């Protein structure tokens, strides 16, 4: 089982709660995904629609909330959001996101490292969203990150794991769980990440915007299970030359 900061998870598929067409669809899809850990964001209450509280539909005993700091452009903004999350959510777990560029939503490595160090010292369980940089992953775990969350491709792009080479190094070196986050657009992408040895994946957009989010959630769950089973079973080596699957002997009668 996956263990992060002393808490165990049966499901290696983490769910996101953004972009769903309705709270009802979101809940059904998350239940179908089998996810136990789900991300949430923090925003101002809409004073014109104060009853609009989609999180009220989610059972906190069933889902482990992982508040994110989405929208933060530097460490200070992220820390402010972290403290708000801790106050409203009664949790010290945090998906740290520091994304100064709204066009790419790529994480700022320096601010992310700085915020991780400060937040860990303040008692947070920090899972930083990061570019797939093996050196940064080591530095983040050195300052106390509970897991690292390298991106497959930019948030919401559905492009899959474009960072395979770097993610593989991160997985090989990591002493903390590696959660491939962002850009996983199809179950095959999630399976590929799991086959490489990722400890978990986080999927939001691909499920939320699917024609049938509930079935897509099931498809991702199956892909994550398959990928994990393949990794644990030991994949065959890749090679440059063909290697016959059928016996090469016993063909004397042909010649």
């Amino acid at each position, binding site marked *: 089982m996956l263990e992060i900061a002393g808490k165990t998870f049966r499901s290696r598929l983490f769910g*996101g*709660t*953004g*972009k*769903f067409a309705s709270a009802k669809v*979101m809940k059904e899809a998350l239940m179908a995904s089998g996810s136990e850990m789900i*991300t*949430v*964001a*923090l*925003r*101002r*209450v809409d*004073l014109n629609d*104060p*009853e609009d*509280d*989609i*999180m*009220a539909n989610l059972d906190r005993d069933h889902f482990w*909330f992982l*508040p*994110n700091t*989405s929208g933060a452009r530097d460490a200070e903004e992220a820390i402010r959001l972290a*403290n*708000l*999350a801790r*106050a*409203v*959510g009664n949790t010290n777990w945090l998906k740290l996101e520091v994304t100064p560029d709204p066009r790419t939503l790529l994480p700022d490595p320096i601010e992310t490292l700085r915020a991780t160090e400060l937040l860990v010292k303040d008692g947070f369980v920090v899972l930083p969203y990061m570019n797939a940089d093996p050196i940064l992953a080591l530095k983040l775990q050195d300052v106390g990150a509970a897991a690292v969350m390298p991106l497959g491709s930019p*948030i*919401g792009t559905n492009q899959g794991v474009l960072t395979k080479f770097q993610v593989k190094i991160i997985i090989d070196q990591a002493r903390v769980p590696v959660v491939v986050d*962002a850009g996983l657009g199809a179950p095959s992408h999630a399976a590929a990440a799991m086959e490489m040895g990722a400890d978990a994946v*986080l999927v*939001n*957009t691909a499920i939320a915007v699917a024609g049938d989010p509930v079935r897509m959630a099931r498809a991702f769950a199956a892909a994550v299970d398959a990928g994990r089973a393949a990794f644990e079973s030991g994949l065959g080596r890749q090679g440059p030359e063909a290697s016959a699957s059928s016996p090469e002997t016993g063909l004397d009668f042909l010649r």
Partner: protein
Amino acid sequence: MNITVNGEPKETSPNNSILNLLNELEINAQTVVVECDNTIIKQEEYATTILQDGAVLELIRFVGGG
């Protein structure tokens, strides 16, 4: 007395508590965090924290996100 709530100017009665304000705005106090003049107010202090003229409040809650 004038205060600012989530960037919008609001009028409220003097000696109003944060809890009363949330009730007036029809917001469930259990689901929000209140930042008053850049300080997070603990939920158990909503009833006893009295708003001052010119206070700037942020009412924040969880929303869907990835």
